[in-house]
């Protein structure tokens, strides 16, 4: 999208310890290591799964300018694959997760190949339609358990030896997955590949005239985003021990869009913050019928009308201006 900002990059160039990405990442990691001893680990693990999902989605929307309305397909279907691998094939945890990621990447390749043939709103509609097709496959295929989904998926040991039977064990596995996923996204965005993606977002024709094969870059971004969404979906199966239709439904695709938009598209921190807010909100409102849908719809409308850059996108530049002003005063 045209008016998204890139907070991380401008932060790095302006220097100062306040902008040191590594320092903040270390602080965040320490907090996440301690947090489950104070809060319910399953809840934080859930937030981490969705944060990774939203960050993977944002890789596509924020940095390549492609709005996918079908990311639930990757998230939900890889959950089924991982669940099946653990439950029926009795694979160990890492193989189950890898299988989920591989299938999500493959699905991303097929859907991506079709969707990048059109642009803008058509891209959104095509991804939505194809993900609905994946939903119907998940509903009718023999290995997905239909309406019931896969329940009681066993938490098999990691590499066959590391025990994952307690919630705390699984939390640290999910934290590791989250860190790996976010690191991959960070590296992708700050690599020459990421720069080319941004140039395609800003002006596709110019990027093509400079000799970049725009479609290949877009497809690669799509597959990467799909694979990471799949990673998030597989991690969620480890946490909740179930894979269900809610994860492949179009509402889930909408939710991840909302997380990214609310937090701030095109920022590293935005989707993580957005996911934290939305998941906490859902937890609070879960008891009151469809109130959570109403609130989500309202937040969507308010976001688009009033703060399109999302929380991080709006606050980030203000913070920097405040800090730069402060430095000048000295």
């Amino acid at each position: 999208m045209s008016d998204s900002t890139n907070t991380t990059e401008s932060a790095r160039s302006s220097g100062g310890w306040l902008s040191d990405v590594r320092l903040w990442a270390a602080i965040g990691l320490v907090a996440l290591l301690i947090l489950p001893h104070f809060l319910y680990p399953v809840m934080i693990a859930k937030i981490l799964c969705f944060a990774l999902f939203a960050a993977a989605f944002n890789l596509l929307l924020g940095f390549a300018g492609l709005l996918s309305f079908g990311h639930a397909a990757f998230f939900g279907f890889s959950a089924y694959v991982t669940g099946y691998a653990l439950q029926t094939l009795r694979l160990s945890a890492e193989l189950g997760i890898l299988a989920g990621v591989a299938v999500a990447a493959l699905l991303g390749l097929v859907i991506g190949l079709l969707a990048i043939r059109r642009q803008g709103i058509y891209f959104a509609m095509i991804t939505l339609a194809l993900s609905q097709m994946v939903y119907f496959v998940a509903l009718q295929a023999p290995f997905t358990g239909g309406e019931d989904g896969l329940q009681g998926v066993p938490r098999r040991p990691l590499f066959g030896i590391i025990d994952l039977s307690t919630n705390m064990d699984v939390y640290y596995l999910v934290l590791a997955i989250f860190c790996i996923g976010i690191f991959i996204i960070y590296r992708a965005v700050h690599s020459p590949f990421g720069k080319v993606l941004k140039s395609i977002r800003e002006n596709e024709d110019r990027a093509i005239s400079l000799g970049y094969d725009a479609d290949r870059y877009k497809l690669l971004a799509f597959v990467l985003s799909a694979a990471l969404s799949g990673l998030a979906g597989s991690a969620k199966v480890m946490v909740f021990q179930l894979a269900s239709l809610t994860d492949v439904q179009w509402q889930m695709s909408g939710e991840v869009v909302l997380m990214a938009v609310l937090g701030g598209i095109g920022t590293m921190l935005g989707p993580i913050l957005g996911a934290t807010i939305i998941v906490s909100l859902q937890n609070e409102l879960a008891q009151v019928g469809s109130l959570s849908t109403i609130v989500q719809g309202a937040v969507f409308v308010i976001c688009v009308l009033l703060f399109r850059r999302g929380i991080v996108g709006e606050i980030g530049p203000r913070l920097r201006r405040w800090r730069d002003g402060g430095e000048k005063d000295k």
Partner: protein
Amino acid sequence: MMDLLGIPVPVLMGQLLIGLINGAFYAVLSLGLALIFGLLNIVNFAHGALYMVGAFVAFLLLDILGIGYWPALVLSPIIVGIFGMLIERFMLRRIADLDHLYGLLLTFGLALLLEGLFRQVYGVAGETYAIPESLQGGYNLGFMFLPAYRAWVLAASIVVCAATWYLIEMTRLGATMRAAVENADLVRAFGVNVPLLVTLTYGLGVGLAAFAGVLAAPIYSVNPLMGSNIIIVVFAIVVIGGLGSIKGAIISGFLLGLCEGLTRVFYAEASNIIIFVVMAIVLIVRPAGLFGKAA
């Protein structure tokens, strides 16, 4: 019993009729989407939700005020149309100059909001709406039984599609609208109130959705989820037909409804996904859509 391709004729005809009825709804909905897309350049994600609201308005008119089917068929599109014009005037206009994806996001939020509100009040079970007395019963055509209400739905939607096509292609107002699609600034320079035209177009588009909703009320139950189930299929149809032409939207709506009906006869498991498969094939063979111009 007569057989055609190994299928009893009444079964085949019955499924084709259901396909044609679904196609009628697809056609009216994608027609509205195409109208709105033409002038506002946004894909109205709230279209399905407004179709659902249309059905609910008819239900509420009957339930609370005792107003029957025939007045509701006129009143509901007007009420929803006015509601749509308010949405356009106070929300969509504010983001008209931005990336069109924001329009999609905003209308998606509205769809969630409307669906959530109705679900909160009416649950997911849905309410029944009786077929009006004058349209009960049906005709025996010899090879199949044609329920009167379904015949009416088919006729009404064809008339509405034709009327809209006539309005856009043959009248002076339609000509102005088409001119505004081509070049809004120039049309404004000729003294046409383009913002008003945009508001009216949005009202007309969602009015059509509400009309389809009222038509659908006696066939399907009046259900808060009825809109989201159909809108994704309509999106696929719009990708197949291209949003560029009114005629394309109508034809592809009916054709794909038939296609879905035929699939239900020969391979029922695939009937849910056949339209998406067709979309994928069209994207491979003719990326701009059947009626679209290459970008």
